[in-house]
């Protein structure tokens, strides 16, 4: 029999191990950033890349930033996709971890709540017709349309789920149904698309792409993702309790309907703002939480941040590889996330003896 003090120490030890695991992933992410900057057509070397980044991050250190050509390659072309990959990966993975926890379902991703097919439909509509729900957005027409349709999907899912009372089952069922509805509409648009160009643009958008990332898009997505992910982490205790079922949550003083609604809104805002800019990148959202769970367990206080780190790392690696495989053509990152993510997932699954799902 262990004493009370021993038990408390055991718990603290476990907590330290989790924090250490997250620090290691963070370190891996930093290394991946530097490697990614220094690879690719017309790239500066590893040392130069580090120099430019450091000189921009810490201007007071007076590090020599190198030639202006190197600087502009790194700052204008290399860094935006890398940073967007990190933000997008982190936001999508955190959303996945949150929704899987709240809905008590390991198969949940942004696809299942209809958000991504709605975004796809909105984008396709804008690409094809050149008009959005709201006119006058110029270059952001596709982005704004995708975003608005994602929100629309969430509102419909919420409304449909409310008919029988908001529970995990009704949310999942409504989400799947609305997702199918928008997929059908999307197929219809693709089928009817008159010009080859428009169809090509739609398909390209649907496969996800980070290459077009700009600092402007980062400035829009970054605050939204940071805020929504922070609010998701704030819900961690509620999500933990909710994972034991709605009745237990109620008996522990948690209003499960309220938590479900809050997390649905957060998930939609994060996912919609990301995929409106990047196109549909679904896989990190599904797989990162599982990898995180295998590494550090299911306590959402740690799981959501850890999933974010893994999501950022996975998406960054995928994007780097997508850029390098057939130079100078860049493959859509959506394809690479699955191609790289699945073997990585199987590796972790095989190397962990413990059975995590029963």
């Amino acid at each position, binding site marked *: *029999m*262990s*004493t*009370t*003090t*021993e*038990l*408390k120490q*055991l*718990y*603290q030890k*476990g907590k330290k191990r989790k924090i250490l695991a997250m620090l290691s992933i963070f370190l891996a992410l930093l290394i991946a950033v530097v490697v990614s900057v220094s690879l690719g057509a017309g790239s500066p070397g590893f040392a130069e890349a580090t120099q430019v980044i450091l000189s921009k991050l810490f201007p007071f250190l007076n590090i020599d930033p190198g030639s202006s050509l190197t600087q502009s390659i790194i700052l204008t072309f290399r860094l935006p996709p890398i940073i967007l990959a990190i933000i997008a990966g982190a936001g999508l993975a955190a959303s996945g971890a949150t929704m*899987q*926890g709240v809905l*008590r*379902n*390991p198969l949940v991703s942004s696809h299942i709540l209809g958000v991504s097919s709605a975004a796809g439909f909105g984008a396709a509509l804008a690409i094809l017709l050149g008009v959005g729900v709201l006119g006058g957005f110029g270059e952001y027409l596709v982005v704004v349309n995708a975003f608005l349709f994602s929100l629309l999907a969430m509102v419909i899912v919420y409304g449909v789920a409310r008919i029988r009372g908001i529970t995990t089952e009704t949310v999942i069922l409504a989400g799947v149904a609305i997702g199918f509805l928008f997929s059908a509409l999307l197929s219809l648009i693709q089928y009817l698309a008159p010009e080859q160009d428009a169809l090509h643009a739609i398909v390209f958008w649907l496969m996800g792409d980070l290459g077009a990332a700009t600092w402007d898009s980062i400035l829009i997505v970054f605050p939204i993702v940071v805020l929504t992910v922070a609010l998701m982490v*704030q819900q961690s*205790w509620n999500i*933990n*309790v909710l*994972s*034991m*079922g709605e*009745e*237990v949550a*109620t*008996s*522990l*003083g*948690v*209003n499960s309907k309220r938590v479900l609604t809050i997390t649905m809104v957060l998930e939609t805002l994060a996912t919609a703002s990301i995929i409106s800019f990047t196109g549909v990148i679904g896989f990190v959202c599904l797989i990162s939480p599982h990898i995180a*769970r295998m590494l550090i*367990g*299911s*306590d959402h206080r740690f799981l959501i941040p850890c999933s974010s780190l893994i999501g950022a790392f996975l998406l960054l690696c995928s994007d780097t590889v997508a850029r390098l495989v057939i130079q100078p053509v860049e493959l859509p990152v959506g394809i690479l996330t699955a191609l790289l993510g699945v073997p990585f997932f199987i590796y972790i699954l095989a190397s962990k003896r*413990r*059975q*995590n*799902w*029963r």
Partner: protein
Amino acid sequence: MALNLTVNNLSFKYDGTQVLEDVNIEVKIGEMLSIVGPNGSGKSTLLKCINRILKTQQNTVLIDGEDTSKLNLKELSKIMGYVPQNSTNTFPFTVFDIVLMGRKPYIHWSLSERDTEIVAEMMNYIGIGNLAMRHFNELSGGEQQKVIIARALAQQPQFLLLDEPTSSLDIKHQLEILCILKSLAKTKHRAVIVAMHDLNLASRFSDSMLMLKKGSIFTVGTPNAVLTEENIEAVYGIKTHVTNSVLGSPQVTPLISEFNGIKPLKTTPKIETIDSRA
């Protein structure tokens, strides 16, 4: 410090069906009350109504005369703990994590020293300290039940409600759990309300028993008063022989020959589904 819990004229309808009608209960701190009755008689529903997992009319559940429907869920969860019939978790949580959830009503964001202290104490009290870092889903049914009771205790409630905590356990675990509950009532200043199927175990451990029939109280009182051959036949529809056990509590022996008299095709068997329990 609360002293008693009163249920006044509690009625509950589920999708138009009257599940509970005019139920009145009084439980004092230090008492163990068991609720018995056939499947579908409303035992689980009654517990959920008391804990406001299911909502009922105002002024039906009172603690020291105060209407609990005026409390918010969080306040109530510091007074009442609930142990459901089955506990599952889709994702891997450790035993410590699960018991820690019982501190939810007290936690804002960060854990205090006191929270982990109470969790560790409750685990040791129930005797699951050695399981602390095991995964909940890997444990046996009996161990899982203890973890969930420890979680309810971590809420530091004065009233503990349990829904058939022993029905899927072996005889040793049954006794262990009921001894824990009894000692909670007697030495830890709590009131325990437990829905049970096993009449003999209920009779041996309860201070008083409440027998439900189709959502209404059929009879209530000491085990000796409740467990009579007439009452059991009226509520369960079977003939029994009630004697005094070596320990003095009434002992129910179902008379097997009477089962042969029952023609199953003439009566519709009641199948308890997840829905009817809810």
